[in-house]
């Protein structure tokens, strides 16, 4: 059963159509909700949290209509993009409180708070007031409060916002752990394709309120038949040698690309590099990137995980 299901979901704000008849399903694992500003990501999250009423269509969470009851939110976590942490309260106290209002008894709430803070790497700092935390620590607390009541699924809105490259990498690794070791499914709302490629199993791509694509991330980043060759020396000579052998390389500085290569072409390339005295630095099949999604024909859906 899908954890989340959007069916013909439409939502307008005045004259702006934030979502336009969008249908998709999200299963277990880590899913990226990808799109630029105004694509409809935040509106989708609010609809799944039951904070907005759809104009038409339905948003289901764990098999129940998101608007039917607040009880479904006992099994849902949410970390917003913006600041949401009180400054003069310790992380331990705040998380225990969030756990209690999510339905955990007091003792269990305190234990869970400490445990989750340990897992996100803030155990030593848990009694410090959160106003003194760095941006990275605050992002971790935001993640922790979304997990403290042990939800089935957690929505993370731009979880790497404001982080430096190292902090971003650590946060994405943490999210991978949550989705893997913790067994909590995650939906990341982001406009950063790199975050989705690094952390997510599947992706739902929205553009201007419409569904652009949905499917496994691996399907979007699979290898192509294009071969990329990077040489430290002799790129021009190698390109010339390949042309003499009947191939049509594209030369861009030290980088060569060969389209539609076959097994024999690899042997030819090896021989040409040796003959021309080229110094090979890198040789690999090119991969699709999520960026291609926005340049291909819209409204395509991968066959593997097509929405109903």
């Amino acid at each position: 059963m899908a954890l989340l299901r959007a069916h013909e979901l439409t939502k307008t704000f005045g004259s702006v159509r934030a979502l336009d008849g969008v249908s998709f399903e999200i299963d277990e694992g880590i899913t990226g909700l990808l799109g630029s500003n105004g694509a409809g990501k935040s509106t989708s999250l609010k609809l799944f949290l039951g904070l907005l009423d759809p104009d038409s269509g339905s948003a289901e969470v764990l098999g129940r209509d998101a608007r039917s009851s607040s009880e479904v939110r006992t099994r849902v976590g949410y970390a917003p993009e913006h600041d949401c942490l009180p400054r003069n309260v310790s992380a331990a106290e705040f998380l225990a409180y969030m756990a209690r209002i999510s339905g955990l008894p007091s003792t269990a709430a305190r234990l869970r708070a400490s445990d989750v803070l340990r897992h996100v790497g803030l155990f030593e700092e848990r009694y410090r007031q959160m106003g003194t935390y760095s941006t990275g620590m605050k992002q971790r607390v935001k993640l922790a409060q979304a997990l403290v009541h042990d939800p089935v699924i957690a929505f993370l809105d731009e979880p790497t916002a404001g982080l430096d490259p190292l902090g971003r990498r650590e946060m994405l690794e943490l999210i991978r752990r949550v989705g893997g070791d913790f067994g909590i499914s995650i939906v990341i709302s982001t406009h950063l394709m790199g975050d989705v490629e690094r952390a997510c199993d599947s992706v739902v791509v929205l553009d201007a309120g419409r569904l652009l694509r949905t499917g496994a991330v691996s399907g979007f980043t699979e290898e192509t038949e294009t071969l990329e060759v990077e040489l430290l020396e002799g790129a021009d000579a190698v390109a010339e040698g390949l042309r003499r052998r009947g191939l049509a390389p594209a030369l861009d500085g030290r980088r060569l690309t060969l389209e539609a290569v076959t097994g024999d072409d690899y042997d030819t390339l090896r021989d040409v590099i040796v003959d021309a005295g080229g110094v090979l630095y890198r040789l690999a099949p090119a991969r699709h990137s999520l960026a291609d999604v926005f340049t291909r024909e819209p409204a395509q859906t991968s066959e593997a995980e097509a929405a109903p």
Partner: protein
Amino acid sequence: MTSGPAEIFDLGYHGYEGERTGRWARRGAIWRDGIRISLGLGRGVGAKVAPWLLLGLALVPMVVLVVVAAFVGPATNPDDFELPSYGDYYEWAMVPLALFAAVVAPLLICPDRRDGVLSLYAARPITPLDYVGARWAAFGTVLLGAAWAPEAVLFVWNALDAEQPGTFLADNWDVVPRFLAAGAVVSAVLTTLALFVSSFATRRAYATVAMLAVVFIGSAIGGIAENDFSGGGADAVSLVSLPQSLVDSVHWIFGDELDRPVSGGVALLWLLGLTVVLAGWLVRRTNRLVRG
């Protein structure tokens, strides 16, 4: 060195498989948090100064008067020293109670708005009504305690000081529901007004100033209407002095007969009507704030 057998602890992630509480327990968690905020519990010393000082100002004078009555009263002429009546004490206590509402109540709402915490409440299994209702109940509970405590001290002392406490209790049992009702009215009105004003500010200081402005400007207008004008219109305008209207209501509840332009019963109806309207407005506004 430990002598027991070695153990390997599993520090991996464990999901929660215990019981989950119901909606009332979740409301109770918000209520307890509101109580802690109101009294500065679990916070620094600075957060405790204002609430405890103001609560002390409401309570301590009655305790002092009772102590004076206990130790000095018997040696003096009864005409020279007399404890205040239940209704009279509110004429003093109304000031610290209103200040307490103005200074402390904003802490229950303004920081949540300023720090963006409302979005987290929105994603929890509670409704905006649960949130604001529990906050209202929390502050109301503290204010109720502050309003009841001095009256309870006075009642107990009067009973102990009577020649026959049993007879006193039999003759004055109706005082108890009256002071409970009076405290409930004062608490409900001040709590609702203070939280309503606070819901329009993200900074506590702005909410405090706005609440004080409502109280003092209302008192000034009511005082001018009462002292410098006459007629039904002036009498009606005098009701905007909320502290005076509250004191009049309290006297009416205790059955005190006062020469006031508007009867205490009318003042009580006005205050209850105002409270209901403001409470409804507060709920609607919170609903909008929480859902963003």
